[in-house]
């Protein structure tokens, strides 16, 4: 990740002589990417902004409506709860998911026979589609014969409507998502842990550092690049939550489960309010941009690169 910010080989670039530029070759190699940026990713962000200033149902010509869509969003209760739910989802699932994954990665980083098999168990949900996972969890959470309620019932706890109860619905979905996402963070943490030189830990041990001290002053600082990377990944995916909601909140999510992306989907592709959906998209974009900018800015303060 340091390579992102550190200019490469400034001396060679200053040289000027010999091969000074590969401009044409670069154009060839970057052709597809540039086209993609223009028509599928970076360009459309601007298009979203333009569409958000209109009233457009795709069937008739778009009508310019200024900031009406944004003003309407401000007072739209469903959008407010979608924002609230998305924030709640992020604030709970990102730190919780990372801490659990870090603990498990440290535990999995031991040499015990059969550890590879246990590791596989943790990675399995990562490769499984959210819809398949959501289906089985819907069944586990079911208020009608669901496994979780059967287990709780054995302890005398009354049946819970995990997926429709206002206070339980989102936390239940978050629990499922953390369960599903653990593996990817574990992989990254394991890679980071295995990159920590053993002699560094040994040296700290010889100097009398206990296991907590070694974790706190050797492992953790050296792991900060991994923590940074996993946090960015988790943040991005938590702002994109859609599949879980689409599957678990059928026929449509209540105010306790709707997320911003579902709100965009609902307005754009169910109601065909393209302008309104674009305005919501642009708000989401600004929020994510702000979050990541702050986070990237913070990395100089706490991320240590070897």
């Amino acid at each position, binding site marked *: 990740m340091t390579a992102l910010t550190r200019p490469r080989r400034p001396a060679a670039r200053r040289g000027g002589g010999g091969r000074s*530029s590969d401009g044409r070759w670069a154009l060839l190699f970057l052709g597809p990417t540039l086209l993609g940026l223009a028509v*599928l990713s*970076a360009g459309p962000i601007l*298009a979203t902004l333009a569409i958000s200033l209109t009233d457009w149902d795709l069937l008739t010509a778009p009508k310019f409506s200024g900031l009406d869509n944004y003003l309407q969003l401000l007072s739209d209760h469903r959008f407010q709860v979608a924002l609230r739910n998305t924030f709640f989802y992020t604030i709970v699932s990102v730190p919780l998911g990372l801490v659990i994954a870090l603990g498990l990665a440290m*535990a999995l980083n031991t040499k015990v026979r059969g550890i590879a098999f246990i590791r596989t168990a943790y990675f399995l949900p990562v490769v*499984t589609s959210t*819809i398949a996972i959501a*289906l089985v969890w819907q069944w586990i959470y079911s208020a009608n014969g669901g496994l979780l309620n059967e287990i709780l*019932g054995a302890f005398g706890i009354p049946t819970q409507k995990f997926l429709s109860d206002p206070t339980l619905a989102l936390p239940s979905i978050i629990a499922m998502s953390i369960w599903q996402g653990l593996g990817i963070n574990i992989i990254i943490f394991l890679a980071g842990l295995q990159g920590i030189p053993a002699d560094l830990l040994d040296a700290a041990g010889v100097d009398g550092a206990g296991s907590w001290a070694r974790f706190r002053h050797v492992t953790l600082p050296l792991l900060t690049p991994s923590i940074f990377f996993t946090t960015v990944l988790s943040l991005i995916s938590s702002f994109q939550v859609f599949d879980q909601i689409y599957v678990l909140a059928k026929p449509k999510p209540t105010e306790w489960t709707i997320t911003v992306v579902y709100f965009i989907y609902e307005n754009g592709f169910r109601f065909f309010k393209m302008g309104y959906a674009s305005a919501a998209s642009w708000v989401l974009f600004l929020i994510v941009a702000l979050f990541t900018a702050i986070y990237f800015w913070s990395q100089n303060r706490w991320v240590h690169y070897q």
Partner: protein
Amino acid sequence: MRATAETVPQAASRAQLARRLRTVRRAVLVGLLIAGGLVMIAPFAWMISTSLKTRAEVFVTPPTLIPIVPQWHNYADMWNALPFASFFLNSFKLAILNTVGQLVSCSMAAFAFSALRFRFREPLFALLLVTLIIPFQVVLVPNFVLYRLLPHPFSESGNWIGTHEPLWVGAFLGGAFGTFLLRQFFLAIPHELGDAARVDGANPWQIYRHIYLPLAKPALATLAIFTFMWSWNDLIDPVIYLRDIQTLTVTAGLSLFQGQYVGRWPLLMAGALVSVLPMILLFIVAQRQFVRGIALTGIKG
């Protein structure tokens, strides 16, 4: 030198105690890991168990893990309830196209960003990274509008809506994640290799094709697996773009199935299990590459 006769046995017993402590801690650790592993596996086991039960058996209290008589016909019933064979073909086709597209376009871009020298390289790469961070849903509307404008000779609508094209063509136009991943890997390839080839008269394409690509196989494998997985598991795009039941992917088909067979848990679980089998097989086969690829590229800096 100062070690006296007293301190040596003391140190020895302390070492012994430490060793015993380590053994205990290790046992606790392994116990926790196995318990955690069971929590990870349990939903899959429950999926399999339910898929082989009768409709009545799933509601029995207390719940049982092993079906009394395995209802294998649940799988046939599920397979015939909707055109699952088409769903699978569609998903495979799209996953392969997406994988090829990403491997080609991302490796080319990554090569440019790591081995070529040109104006605007840093700002362009920064722009690409920004798109890595924005949720792609932000551009759902303009992309939909774009595909609606593109003419299509074989579609009912006359444009790309309702066809598979919106679900794979974009993969040939690069991607921030793949480019970033491969660039990290390419940066670790000694520059001298390319320089030496240039002195011998090789052009950048040859360097890319014969030096960078062969050396980057682990990273390419990682990107291939990830892309295949994303494509296979994608839900929102098929839901938005596909109309005709025959064109649905496995995920979209499963979602439809869920809507039509509410509460029929054995059939739904059979469908869920069949839908994830290809990914699980791929993962088991390629697990080493999956993990090693990340270790090599993800965060090395």
